[in-house]
């Protein structure tokens, strides 16, 4: 029943909005959009990007913008992103890649595109990452852990997703900053890392706070520090300190936003960006994203470009040098 009434409500809302649109034409910038907005989610259905893009899709539809999500998975986001850069620059085909596919992968190898082939349109949400240990681990605070790592080089094992990628690089920089060594264990997905942490096979897990939080609630895990560059206190884990306070520069970026093929018309992109900004205010959208452990962080195209360039320039050279070394 609840869903039926919601459906009726939404339908009425759309109807109402279209009347309002008719009455005061061009009042909302997105009303000039006359084609379907296609959002390419370059990952398989079911993940964070998929959920984020689908939430955006329905929020856009509520605003009267016709929108559709298309999953084009492959090579950890690279395939779908590349496909988007090859599409005509109408402004109506957009992609929502994660930071690794958008910035790091093109730096490591020739994937057929670079950041310059894409035009940032709007930042949508970001995921916060953190370091968690098992509840019966001897370390109560991040200082305990760091001191132990410092005194016992090569003993503590850190698990995270991927190898020779920003996740491993971050853990190795942590060890370097402490002038010590760690054992890094790579995994295919975040779930596996947590399973091995709970099972006592690894000591520390680095991953999204969203995936760790449920286990903190059951008392199986403890989050010691976070890697969010934008805030002191991450939502859901108040009092957990940022790692950058202990080891300089230890931050991790992962945010999802829309980008269009370079050369897309500004009017269309601005209109879509305005619609995304409006969608980001929606109460229901905020709830869905918070439940999934994501923080709303709308930025317009220009501001998003600044963040992207900052991440690329600040991390590109040292990261590439590190990959070369491996």
């Amino acid at each position, binding site marked *: 029943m609840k869903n039926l009434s919601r459906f009726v409500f939404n339908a009425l809302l759309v109807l109402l909005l279209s009347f309002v649109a008719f009455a005061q034409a061009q009042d909302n910038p997105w009303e000039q959009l006359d084609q379907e907005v296609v959002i390419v989610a370059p990952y398989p259905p079911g993940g964070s990007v998929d959920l984020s893009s689908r939430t955006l899709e329905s929020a856009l539809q509520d605003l009267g913008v016709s929108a559709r999500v298309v999953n084009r998975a492959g090579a950890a986001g690279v395939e779908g992103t590349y496909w988007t850069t090859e599409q005509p620059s109408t402004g109506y085909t957009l992609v929502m890649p994660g930071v690794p596919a958008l910035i790091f992968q093109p730096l490591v190898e020739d994937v*057929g595109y670079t950041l310059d082939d894409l035009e940032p349109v709007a930042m949508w949400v970001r995921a916060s990452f953190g370091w968690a240990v098992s509840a019966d681990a001897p370390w109560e605070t991040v200082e305990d852990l760091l001191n132990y790592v410092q005194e016992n080089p090569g003993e503590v094992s850190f698990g995270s997703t991927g190898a020779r990628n920003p996740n491993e690089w971050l853990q190795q920089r942590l060890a370097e900053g402490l002038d010590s060594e760690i*054992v890094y264990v790579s995994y295919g997905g975040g*779930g596996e890392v947590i399973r091995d942490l709970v099972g006592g096979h690894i000591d520390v897990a680095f991953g999204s706070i969203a995936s760790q939080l449920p286990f903190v609630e059951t008392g199986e895990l403890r989050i010691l520090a976070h890697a969010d560059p934008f805030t002191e206190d991450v939502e859901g884990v108040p009092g957990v300190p940022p790692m950058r306070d202990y080891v300089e520069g230890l931050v991790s970026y992962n945010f999802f936003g829309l980008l269009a093929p370079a050369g897309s018309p500004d009017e269309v992109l601005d209109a879509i960006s305005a619609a995304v900004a409006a969608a980001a205010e929606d109460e229901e959208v905020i709830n869905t994203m918070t439940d999934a452990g994501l923080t709303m962080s709308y930025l317009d195209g220009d501001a998003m470009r600044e963040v992207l360039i900052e991440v690329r320039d600040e991390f590109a050279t040292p990261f590439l040098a590190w990959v070369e070394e491996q």
Partner: protein
Amino acid sequence: MGFEPDVFISVLQSIFAVAPLLYLLGGLIVGIGIGAIPGLTPLLGVALLLPVMGALPLQSGLALLIGTYKGATFGGSITAIKFATPGTAASTAIVQDGFALSQKGQTVKAQKMALYASITGDTFSDLVLILVAVPLGAIAPRFGPAELTGLFFASLTLIIVFTGKDPAKGLIAAGVGFFISMIGRDVSTGVLRFTFGIPGLRAGVALVPLLLGLFALPEIIAQIHASALRKRHLEKDAVDAPGEDRGLSGREFLGAWRGLSIGSLVGTFIGALPGPGSTLASYTAYALSQQVSAKPDEYGHGSTEAIAASESANNATCGSNLIPLLTFGIPGSAIAGIFGAALMIQGVPMGPRVMTDFPDVVYTLFLLLLLANPLNLVVGRVFMGVYSNLDKVPVIILWPVIALLTVIGTYAFQSRPFDVVILLGAAVLGCCFRIFNISLAPLVLAYLIGPLFETSLLRALRLARGDYLYFVSSPIAMTMWILSALAIIAFIIGNRRIRLKSRTSAVDGEEDAS
């Protein structure tokens, strides 16, 4: 999770309404159709329906997903038996036996066995999920890198040792499978391997194009070849009615109890583990049931017991697949991940507390899983009839159309044009295997287990920090290594016996070359 009768009764009432049952039925119909079409996997079907979930009430949405999942998992067997073109990866295990029966004019028998076995395995697995999910779920985290390395090593040994008559050919096939699995980006180190600078190979060789190439295309070529020969020599031959197809008798079904019970157990166990999935389950059940079968010689030449084992194992992954998701909040497979996402869309956050916090949702899921089985039986029977009628299509139209569907399905699988290239490459390989009469099963298994074994081995080696006793540091790990050792010993003894037997039979006269 304590049992909560009030919640249970209210859930019961909400499910036995018109809408959820209709959605369940609809899901099954769509699912069996998707499963029967080569290239369209259960995962794809469930993923396509995910967006619809948001617009439906919880019961109907889950009913739709469960129906599609179970229907598609069964549906693959229909085309595997009828046209030797497996609709799903997991149904490749029954291609040989099912198609052999089909060629003998026993299509209905094979299909009924596949259907009844699927339902049996599925129901068993659902009951396990419902009754012992909690204790089973608690075991999952204890399988760390060392234990998994042992487990995968044991299953590899069992399979290579026990499939096929010729161990040397089995090893060759397994070697090829390992090699194919290594192509692409290595998960543990991020290095590209054996891509020869071809960008399309970076993502590796995907399961669906590989299996369709290995099984379906060579069969299609062989069929076209055979029908051309038939036309030249015989004009009209007896292929239409060699023996009556009386379907499956109750005694025949129960006679396959060994296959059914092994399939149900193996499928349920493998389904509950993170990673391996239904294809591995059906192949393992096939290999194991051949070992305990009263008629192991029939395997590969139209054994209903083989079909019973593979198909029950295949569908028995359906229920247990959800164990890690429900008890631990972490999906063990892509499909379980989609179920998790579907529940999240409905406002049910997935995590280790879902069973305590949302008993109504969990009961709904359980009841729908059980309810889907009898409905799957009904829908499956209807579909079998529909597909059997495809017989009447002339061969010169039928096989090219299947070939076309195979290519389209491969492309549809993940919209990658390069997958079609992989399909064609695999088809060449499959033809070679046919010519040299090498079994494809070890190849498929090595391909599936190879990467799992490798990543857990590398992880374990890092964690061992040079101490190799780490590999036997837990009772679970120890058991796995002992099991592998026993399999190898049993193989050596058995092999000697076979050699002795073949020496005596060689004296008797000419050996039967299959």
